[in-house]
Protein backbone atom coordinates (compact mmCIF):
# COMPACT_ATOMS: atom_id res chain seq x y z
CA UNK A 1 0.00 0.00 0.00
CA UNK A 2 1.41 3.39 -1.02
CA UNK A 3 1.54 6.23 1.54
CA UNK A 4 0.17 9.53 0.13
CA UNK A 5 2.64 12.43 -0.20
CA UNK A 6 0.72 14.82 2.11
CA UNK A 7 0.78 12.19 4.91
CA UNK A 8 4.53 11.88 4.57
CA UNK A 9 4.94 15.66 4.81
CA UNK A 10 2.70 15.66 7.88
CA UNK A 11 4.79 13.01 9.62
CA UNK A 12 8.02 14.92 8.86
CA UNK A 13 6.50 18.08 10.42
CA UNK A 14 5.29 16.10 13.44
CA UNK A 15 8.76 14.64 13.98
CA UNK A 16 10.36 18.08 13.63
CA UNK A 17 7.88 19.52 16.13
CA UNK A 18 8.62 16.69 18.60
CA UNK A 19 12.36 17.32 18.27
CA UNK A 20 11.82 21.05 18.83
CA UNK A 21 9.84 20.26 22.01
CA UNK A 22 12.73 18.14 23.27
CA UNK A 23 14.97 21.19 22.99
CA UNK A 24 12.42 23.44 24.78
CA UNK A 25 13.37 22.75 28.47
CA UNK A 26 16.52 24.81 27.93
CA UNK A 27 14.33 27.84 27.28
CA UNK A 28 12.02 27.09 30.23
CA UNK A 29 14.79 27.99 32.68
CA UNK A 30 14.00 31.63 31.98
CA UNK A 31 10.69 31.21 33.83
CA UNK A 32 10.60 33.67 36.72
CA UNK A 33 9.21 31.17 39.22
CA UNK A 34 11.47 28.25 38.21
CA UNK A 35 13.61 27.19 41.16
CA UNK A 36 16.23 25.42 39.00
CA UNK A 37 19.70 26.80 39.44
CA UNK A 38 18.81 28.84 42.55
CA UNK A 39 20.25 28.46 46.02
CA UNK A 40 18.83 26.19 48.70
CA UNK A 41 17.24 28.94 50.78
CA UNK A 42 15.25 30.23 47.83
CA UNK A 43 14.15 26.73 46.83
CA UNK A 44 13.05 25.98 50.39
CA UNK A 45 11.06 29.24 50.44
CA UNK A 46 9.30 28.23 47.20
CA UNK A 47 8.42 24.79 48.56
CA UNK A 48 7.25 26.10 51.93
CA UNK A 49 5.10 28.90 50.53
CA UNK A 50 3.57 26.54 47.97
CA UNK A 51 2.66 24.09 50.73
CA UNK A 52 1.39 26.97 52.91
CA UNK A 53 -0.81 28.46 50.19
CA UNK A 54 -2.14 25.03 49.23
CA UNK A 55 -3.02 23.86 52.71
CA UNK A 56 -4.27 27.12 54.22
CA UNK A 57 -7.53 27.45 52.21
CA UNK A 58 -8.28 23.78 52.79
CA UNK A 59 -7.72 24.22 56.52
CA UNK A 60 -9.83 27.40 56.62
CA UNK A 61 -12.78 25.99 54.68
CA UNK A 62 -12.55 22.64 56.48
CA UNK A 63 -12.34 24.33 59.88
CA UNK A 64 -15.31 26.52 59.11
CA UNK A 65 -17.40 23.57 57.88
CA UNK A 66 -16.50 21.60 61.02
CA UNK A 67 -17.38 24.52 63.29
CA UNK A 68 -20.72 25.13 61.52
CA UNK A 69 -21.62 21.44 61.81
CA UNK A 70 -20.74 21.42 65.50
CA UNK A 71 -22.71 24.62 66.08
CA UNK A 72 -25.76 23.28 64.23
CA UNK A 73 -25.74 20.18 66.41
CA UNK A 74 -25.39 22.24 69.59
CA UNK A 75 -28.25 24.55 68.65
CA UNK A 76 -30.58 21.71 67.71
CA UNK A 77 -29.82 19.89 70.97
CA UNK A 78 -30.51 23.08 72.98
CA UNK A 79 -33.74 23.67 71.11
CA UNK A 80 -35.00 20.14 71.74
CA UNK A 81 -33.92 20.06 75.41
CA UNK A 82 -35.83 23.19 76.41
CA UNK A 83 -39.54 22.71 77.15
CA UNK A 84 -41.74 24.08 74.38
CA UNK A 85 -43.57 27.31 75.06
CA UNK A 86 -47.20 26.77 75.87
CA UNK A 87 -49.67 28.46 73.56
CA UNK A 88 -51.45 31.48 74.97
CA UNK A 89 -54.97 30.78 76.28
CA UNK A 90 -57.81 31.71 73.96
CA UNK A 91 -59.65 34.71 75.36
CA UNK A 92 -63.26 34.08 76.18
CA UNK A 93 -65.83 36.28 74.57
CA UNK A 94 -68.39 37.45 77.00
CA UNK A 95 -71.93 36.59 76.01
CA UNK A 96 -74.21 39.50 75.50
Amino acid sequence: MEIPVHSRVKSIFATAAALALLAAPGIAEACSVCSAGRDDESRTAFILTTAFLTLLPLALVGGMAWWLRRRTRQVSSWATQQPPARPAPIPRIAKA
Partner: protein
Amino acid sequence: MNTQNLQSIRLIHRARQTPAVQNSVLGMLIFVVAEVMFFAGLISAFTIVRAGAVVWPPRDQPRLPLEATAVNTLALLASGVCLYLAHRAFKRDRAAALRPLTIAMLLGAFFVIFQGAEWVRLLGQGLTLTSSTLGSFFYLIIGLHALHAIAALVLLADSWRRLQRGWLAESQFAAAQVFWYFVVLVWPVLYLRVYL
Protein backbone atom coordinates in the same frame (compact mmCIF):
# COMPACT_ATOMS: atom_id res chain seq x y z
CA MET B 1 -51.85 12.05 65.72
CA ASN B 2 -51.14 11.66 69.44
CA THR B 3 -49.80 14.39 71.77
CA GLN B 4 -46.27 13.01 71.96
CA ASN B 5 -45.86 13.07 68.18
CA LEU B 6 -47.23 16.58 68.02
CA GLN B 7 -44.74 17.72 70.67
CA SER B 8 -41.74 16.16 68.90
CA ILE B 9 -42.81 17.78 65.61
CA ARG B 10 -43.00 21.11 67.42
CA LEU B 11 -39.47 20.59 68.85
CA ILE B 12 -38.01 19.73 65.44
CA HIS B 13 -39.71 22.77 63.94
CA ARG B 14 -38.21 25.01 66.63
CA ALA B 15 -34.73 23.48 66.17
CA ARG B 16 -34.96 24.25 62.46
CA GLN B 17 -36.06 27.80 63.11
CA THR B 18 -33.11 28.56 65.46
CA PRO B 19 -30.12 29.72 63.36
CA ALA B 20 -26.82 27.97 64.12
CA VAL B 21 -24.85 31.14 63.36
CA GLN B 22 -26.11 34.67 62.93
CA ASN B 23 -25.99 35.93 59.35
CA SER B 24 -23.73 38.86 60.21
CA VAL B 25 -21.20 36.57 61.90
CA LEU B 26 -21.22 34.10 59.01
CA GLY B 27 -20.76 36.92 56.50
CA MET B 28 -17.89 38.37 58.51
CA LEU B 29 -16.27 34.94 58.83
CA ILE B 30 -16.35 34.45 55.06
CA PHE B 31 -14.83 37.92 54.61
CA VAL B 32 -12.13 37.13 57.19
CA VAL B 33 -11.27 33.85 55.41
CA ALA B 34 -10.76 35.83 52.18
CA GLU B 35 -8.61 38.38 54.02
CA VAL B 36 -6.50 35.63 55.61
CA MET B 37 -5.75 34.31 52.11
CA PHE B 38 -4.91 37.84 50.97
CA PHE B 39 -2.35 38.29 53.76
CA ALA B 40 -1.05 34.75 53.21
CA GLY B 41 -0.32 35.64 49.58
CA LEU B 42 1.52 38.82 50.60
CA ILE B 43 3.56 37.01 53.26
CA SER B 44 4.47 34.26 50.79
CA ALA B 45 5.64 36.80 48.21
CA PHE B 46 7.68 38.59 50.89
CA THR B 47 9.23 35.30 52.06
CA ILE B 48 10.33 34.40 48.51
CA VAL B 49 11.80 37.84 47.81
CA ARG B 50 13.60 37.82 51.15
CA ALA B 51 15.03 34.33 50.56
CA GLY B 52 16.26 35.33 47.10
CA ALA B 53 18.03 38.50 48.32
CA VAL B 54 21.80 38.42 48.65
CA VAL B 55 21.79 40.84 51.62
CA TRP B 56 18.80 41.27 53.94
CA PRO B 57 17.82 43.86 55.04
CA PRO B 58 19.11 45.83 52.02
CA ARG B 59 22.11 48.09 52.54
CA ASP B 60 21.59 51.82 53.24
CA GLN B 61 18.14 51.16 54.62
CA PRO B 62 17.08 51.85 58.20
CA ARG B 63 16.43 48.94 60.54
CA LEU B 64 12.83 48.31 61.54
CA PRO B 65 12.00 49.22 65.18
CA LEU B 66 11.80 45.78 66.80
CA GLU B 67 11.49 46.68 70.49
CA ALA B 68 9.06 49.57 70.09
CA THR B 69 6.83 47.48 67.83
CA ALA B 70 6.97 44.60 70.32
CA VAL B 71 5.46 46.94 72.93
CA ASN B 72 2.86 48.00 70.40
CA THR B 73 2.10 44.32 69.71
CA LEU B 74 1.43 43.81 73.41
CA ALA B 75 -1.00 46.75 73.34
CA LEU B 76 -2.88 45.17 70.43
CA LEU B 77 -3.01 41.77 72.12
CA ALA B 78 -4.26 43.44 75.33
CA SER B 79 -7.02 45.11 73.31
CA GLY B 80 -8.08 41.66 72.08
CA VAL B 81 -8.25 40.42 75.68
CA CYS B 82 -10.32 43.48 76.66
CA LEU B 83 -12.74 42.81 73.83
CA TYR B 84 -13.14 39.24 75.02
CA LEU B 85 -13.91 40.56 78.52
CA ALA B 86 -16.45 42.95 76.95
CA HIS B 87 -18.05 39.98 75.19
CA ARG B 88 -18.37 38.10 78.49
CA ALA B 89 -19.73 41.16 80.27
CA PHE B 90 -22.22 41.74 77.43
CA LYS B 91 -23.70 38.30 78.02
CA ARG B 92 -24.26 38.99 81.73
CA ASP B 93 -25.11 42.67 81.82
CA ARG B 94 -24.95 44.87 78.72
CA ALA B 95 -24.03 48.05 80.57
CA ALA B 96 -21.00 46.34 82.14
CA ALA B 97 -19.52 45.75 78.68
CA LEU B 98 -19.05 49.47 78.06
CA ARG B 99 -15.84 49.86 80.08
CA PRO B 100 -13.82 46.91 78.64
CA LEU B 101 -15.03 47.86 75.16
CA THR B 102 -13.79 51.43 75.68
CA ILE B 103 -10.38 50.16 76.86
CA ALA B 104 -10.16 47.79 73.86
CA MET B 105 -10.88 50.67 71.49
CA LEU B 106 -8.35 52.96 73.17
CA LEU B 107 -5.65 50.29 72.99
CA GLY B 108 -6.48 49.70 69.33
CA ALA B 109 -6.32 53.43 68.61
CA PHE B 110 -2.97 53.59 70.44
CA PHE B 111 -1.67 50.81 68.19
CA VAL B 112 -2.69 52.62 65.00
CA ILE B 113 -1.34 56.01 66.15
CA PHE B 114 1.95 54.46 67.31
CA GLN B 115 2.34 52.69 63.97
CA GLY B 116 1.70 55.99 62.18
CA ALA B 117 4.40 57.69 64.28
CA GLU B 118 6.84 54.88 63.44
CA TRP B 119 6.07 55.29 59.76
CA VAL B 120 6.81 59.02 59.90
CA ARG B 121 10.16 58.25 61.56
CA LEU B 122 11.05 55.55 59.00
CA LEU B 123 10.10 57.82 56.09
CA GLY B 124 12.40 60.46 57.57
CA GLN B 125 15.22 57.91 57.71
CA GLY B 126 14.82 57.09 54.01
CA LEU B 127 12.67 53.95 53.97
CA THR B 128 10.05 54.71 51.33
CA LEU B 129 7.77 52.69 49.09
CA THR B 130 10.30 52.89 46.24
CA SER B 131 13.60 52.90 48.17
CA SER B 132 13.95 49.08 48.27
CA THR B 133 12.02 45.82 48.22
CA LEU B 134 11.94 45.99 52.03
CA GLY B 135 10.25 49.41 51.87
CA SER B 136 7.76 48.24 49.23
CA PHE B 137 6.71 45.15 51.16
CA PHE B 138 6.80 46.88 54.53
CA TYR B 139 4.43 49.67 53.52
CA LEU B 140 2.21 47.32 51.54
CA ILE B 141 1.77 44.61 54.19
CA ILE B 142 1.87 46.74 57.32
CA GLY B 143 -0.15 49.50 55.63
CA LEU B 144 -2.90 47.09 54.63
CA HIS B 145 -3.00 45.77 58.17
CA ALA B 146 -3.31 49.34 59.45
CA LEU B 147 -6.23 49.92 57.06
CA HIS B 148 -7.94 46.81 58.42
CA ALA B 149 -7.28 47.99 61.97
CA ILE B 150 -8.87 51.38 61.21
CA ALA B 151 -11.92 49.70 59.61
CA ALA B 152 -12.28 47.39 62.62
CA LEU B 153 -11.98 50.37 64.97
CA VAL B 154 -14.81 52.10 63.11
CA LEU B 155 -16.96 48.97 63.60
CA LEU B 156 -16.07 48.87 67.30
CA ALA B 157 -16.83 52.59 67.67
CA ASP B 158 -20.25 52.02 66.08
CA SER B 159 -20.87 49.13 68.49
CA TRP B 160 -19.78 51.36 71.40
CA ARG B 161 -22.19 54.12 70.33
CA ARG B 162 -25.07 51.68 70.01
CA LEU B 163 -24.22 50.06 73.34
CA GLN B 164 -24.22 53.43 75.06
CA ARG B 165 -27.64 54.22 73.62
CA GLY B 166 -28.93 50.78 74.53
CA TRP B 167 -29.66 49.37 71.07
CA LEU B 168 -26.66 47.22 70.26
CA ALA B 169 -27.75 43.93 68.71
CA GLU B 170 -25.82 40.84 69.78
CA SER B 171 -25.22 39.83 66.16
CA GLN B 172 -23.68 43.20 65.28
CA PHE B 173 -21.35 43.10 68.26
CA ALA B 174 -20.33 39.53 67.41
CA ALA B 175 -19.47 40.50 63.81
CA ALA B 176 -17.36 43.46 65.00
CA GLN B 177 -15.58 41.14 67.42
CA VAL B 178 -14.75 38.62 64.69
CA PHE B 179 -13.15 41.38 62.60
CA TRP B 180 -11.17 42.79 65.51
CA TYR B 181 -9.91 39.33 66.54
CA PHE B 182 -8.71 38.84 62.96
CA VAL B 183 -6.80 42.16 63.11
CA VAL B 184 -5.30 41.18 66.49
CA LEU B 185 -4.33 37.62 65.55
CA VAL B 186 -2.85 38.33 62.12
CA TRP B 187 -0.53 40.98 63.57
CA PRO B 188 1.92 38.68 65.47
CA VAL B 189 2.39 36.67 62.24
CA LEU B 190 3.20 39.87 60.32
CA TYR B 191 5.51 41.04 63.09
CA LEU B 192 7.45 37.77 63.12
CA ARG B 193 7.76 37.64 59.32
CA VAL B 194 8.37 41.28 58.42
CA TYR B 195 10.16 42.73 61.46
CA LEU B 196 12.32 39.82 62.60
